[in-house]
């Protein structure tokens, strides 16, 4: 196999740098790194045309471990720096790596505007519901009541949902995955990569040191199948160990509810089919939380439109077509001028 520009096919390990990875042993970030390296190999990504931009946090160390171009910037600002990179060179494949504090607290404003403008960036949000690098304070995604060094009596903040935020501000792509799901994660990343425009992927990531097991209620082997629904465009929203549970719209409450197939004549036909272009459905799916509802994983929403960088360059090219023949010299001489004789 050979990649674009005839580059010999690279293996996942070829996308690793010689730098020693410095996350805590057992950190979910390792798994995500592996999934990204696998994705790049599957995509035959040209390392010279790939850029990873990150903010600050444990997650944001990511670029040092990927053998492409990499820019480790400042806390919260990765989307803004990536915007400049992509505007300057839309040919580049730009990935953005952020933690939940990075993306949704200090950088919430930039993420919001990046999503609504729809820059063609592949944005990965490592959500461990905690501030890892600064040693375990609660984050904007932490659940109410969480005790941390800065909330000894329990957090009283209401947490933010990355998915609802993204859909609310006009994102055209939102997907969710789990760090350990090594088969599914690269598939989601590839979808994000293919999507022209801003694509936000939330990855539920375990911080083994400061928030261990925060997603256990979804990911533990014994509950996983009942607490996760993997959405596929056009397929019925069915889940459960025996694939016998489905999601249905309750028209009187305008909310989703779980039904058991076979109960009182309920069949697959009663179950909603996933439509990834349906923002309302995506919003309902993104909001689902255990124990009453499963967590939705996969591509919840994908409805492409023209990307900001494309539009910027379309305008710029149109303007360049109107350039005065004499360039700046001519611009400076246009309008009222007068000659002072020697």
């Amino acid at each position, binding site marked *: 196999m050979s990649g674009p520009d005839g580059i010999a096919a690279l293996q996942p390990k070829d996308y690793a*740098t010689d*730098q020693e990875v410095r996350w805590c042993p057992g950190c979910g970030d390792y798994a995500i790194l592996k999934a990204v390296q696998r994705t790049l190999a599957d995509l035959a990504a040209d*390392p*010279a*045309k790939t*850029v990873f*931009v990150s903010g*600050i946090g444990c997650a944001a160390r990511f*670029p*040092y471990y990927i*053998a*492409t*171009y*990499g*820019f*480790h*910037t*400042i806390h919260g*600002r990765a989307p*803004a*720096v*990536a*915007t*400049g*990179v*992509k*505007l*300057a*060179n839309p*040919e*580049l494949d730009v990935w953005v790596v952020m933690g939940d504090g990075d993306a949704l607290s200090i950088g919430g*404003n*930039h993420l*919001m*505007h990046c999503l609504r403008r729809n820059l063609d960036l592949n944005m990965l949000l490592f959500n461990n519901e905690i501030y890892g690098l600064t040693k375990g304070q609660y984050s904007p995604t932490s659940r109410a009541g969480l005790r941390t060094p800065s909330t000894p009596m329990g957090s009283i903040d209401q947490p933010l949902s990355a998915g609802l935020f993204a859909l609310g501000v006009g994102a055209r792509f939102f997907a969710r995955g789990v760090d350990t799901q090594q088969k599914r994660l690269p598939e989601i990343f590839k979808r994000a990569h293919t999507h022209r425009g801003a694509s936000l992927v939330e990855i539920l990531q375990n911080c083994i040191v400061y928030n261990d097991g925060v997603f256990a209620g979804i990911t533990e082997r014994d509950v996983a199948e009942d607490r996760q629904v993997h959405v596929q465009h056009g397929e019925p929203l069915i889940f459960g160990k025996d694939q016998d549970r489905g999601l249905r719209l309750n028209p009187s409450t305008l909310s989703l509810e779980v039904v058991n197939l076979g109960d009182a004549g309920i069949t697959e036909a009663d179950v909603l089919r996933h439509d990834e272009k349906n923002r309302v459905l995506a919003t309902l799916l993104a909001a689902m939380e255990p124990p009453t509802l499963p967590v939705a994983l996969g591509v919840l929403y994908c409805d492409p439109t023209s990307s900001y960088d494309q539009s*910027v360059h379309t*305008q*710029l090219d149109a*303007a*360049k*077509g*109107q*350039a*005065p023949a004499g*360039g*700046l*010299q001519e*611009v*400076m*001489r246009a*309008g*009222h*001028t*007068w*000659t*002072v*004789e*020697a």
Partner: protein
Amino acid sequence: MESATVRFAGDSGDGMQITGGQFTLTTALAGNDLATFPDFPAEIRAPAGTTYGVSAFQINFGARRIKTAGDHLDVLVATNPAALKVNLADVKSAGLVIVDTGQFNDKNLRKAHYDSNPLEDDTLAPYRVLKIDITQLTQDAVETVGVTKKEAVRSKNMWALGLVYWLFGRERAPTIAWLKRKFASKPEVLEANIAALNAGHAFGETSELQHEVAQIDVGPAAIPPGLYRAITGAEALAWGLVAGCEKAALRMVFCSYPITPASSLLHSLAALKSLNILTFQAEDEIAAACAAIGASYAGDMGITSSSGPGVALKTEALGLAIATELPLIVVNSQRAGPSTGMPTKTEQSDLYQAVYGRNADSPLVVLAARAPGDCFDVAVEAVRLATKYMTPVMLLTDGYIANASEPWLIPDLDAIASFPVKRRQDPEGYQPFARNPQTLARDWAVPGTPGLMHRIGGIERDSTSGNISYDPDNHQRMTDLRAAKIEGIANDIPLQEVDQGDLGADLVLVGWGSTYGPISRAVTTMLAEGYNVAHVHLRHIWPLPANLGDILNTYKKILIPEMNHGQLVTLLRDRYLVDAESLAQVNGKPFRVSDLEAAVRARISRKPGLEKKL
């Protein structure tokens, strides 16, 4: 007359900026040298008739080189009581005050907080006064045109302009041509404006006026030959940045967030898309700085612009650009006061912010423009230094320079030396933080280039490989290198020149930025009077020119006039251990020449026989 200063003042809605702009154009065409000072209220639409809603435009023009917008007024046109109240104190004794009596009714007098009508008491006794019902005369003049009364009254600024044109023997043709373009689609409004302009002019010619005020003759000035235009600092800066990027063979990516008085630069550049200028209005100043850094990282010339409060927000990103050693230009159009301060008023109080205002040891280059036209040259220099040394450059201008206009000898772009940027292509032996031994700059290796993949970031990095490094010796070395790189630029900038006067004079006035005009005029005058005084003006604020210390040490006294509470004085004392004295002024206005002259007189005495010819 050698020179004259005229101010048009009226309500924000009275079109005073347009009137001033037209008078400027006509005056430039008459061959005068000139300088202008627009002064608008901070409110977008202040209530009519109030003192805080007064908008003014001042122009100083002459048969000699003009260096400031003028201290005191020879002529004040006040189109309502509030404008008279706010501006009268600036008129010279026996100066000419032209008032529109049609606006001096009880309501307007009350709004201007006049207890009695100043036209009827002795308020105007020290001046020559022309009391004319301009409002009524304008209505009479446009009666036949068929515009509404409101539209008729709106052309009264053209009536006043016509009268002032008569006063200085100016041509009306350029303004008529301009009106024709502006009101091409509104023939009645056009006709009304022309009728008003002509009527004002005719009033001067035909009325009894000629017994009270004589026409004033200000002849052309001796200025270098060539093709000229009027230019504001914002325009000159925009064009200078474009020229600089062309000389560097780089595309410009300009990222900004609106703020007074910096927005005009964003507007000017957004209008130049056809020259391949990419502009981006970001969600805030932080994003603007970060996007500019991202653009530079990707190989374009990233530029961001703001005023002091916005530059404060960019500070952390500046640290990133310093740490990663990427080219970046940050334009600061300074404004008055901490926090919101006085957005529409000028000041030069961000010098500390520019030179010192970051966490840790984080040196960068600081340049300052001295006048509207000078912005062009400083902008070209900013691009040169940013790209050659892979460093952020802070370019300081201010609200006064940004909005003021002056005649500008349009430069020949071909005569400006190019400095094309070489990006690294060769993978052989590439190390992200290896340096050019002369400049100490690292190579610019841009994403998309095969074989040069590397990682950079804000964490301290190994002085060669760029890999994360917490090694104590490495941090010392990197800190030293960052400082040495910027200090070394002192050898690549012009030596400091003495603008006027001699080395070793009794007193030197050292200035930077927009104080150039008043200091220069004051020193010219004082030299003519026989004072042994000199003027040194800085463009390169950091690093300072290599010979500056030697120059300063020759003078007996050093005085530093600044529109701040004494910032350059700190820098120079610190750098050279010189006994420099501060002359600080922070009233939102440029220095008056007369105040600077008085400051010289208070410090040294005249040496009869030493008078220098102007």
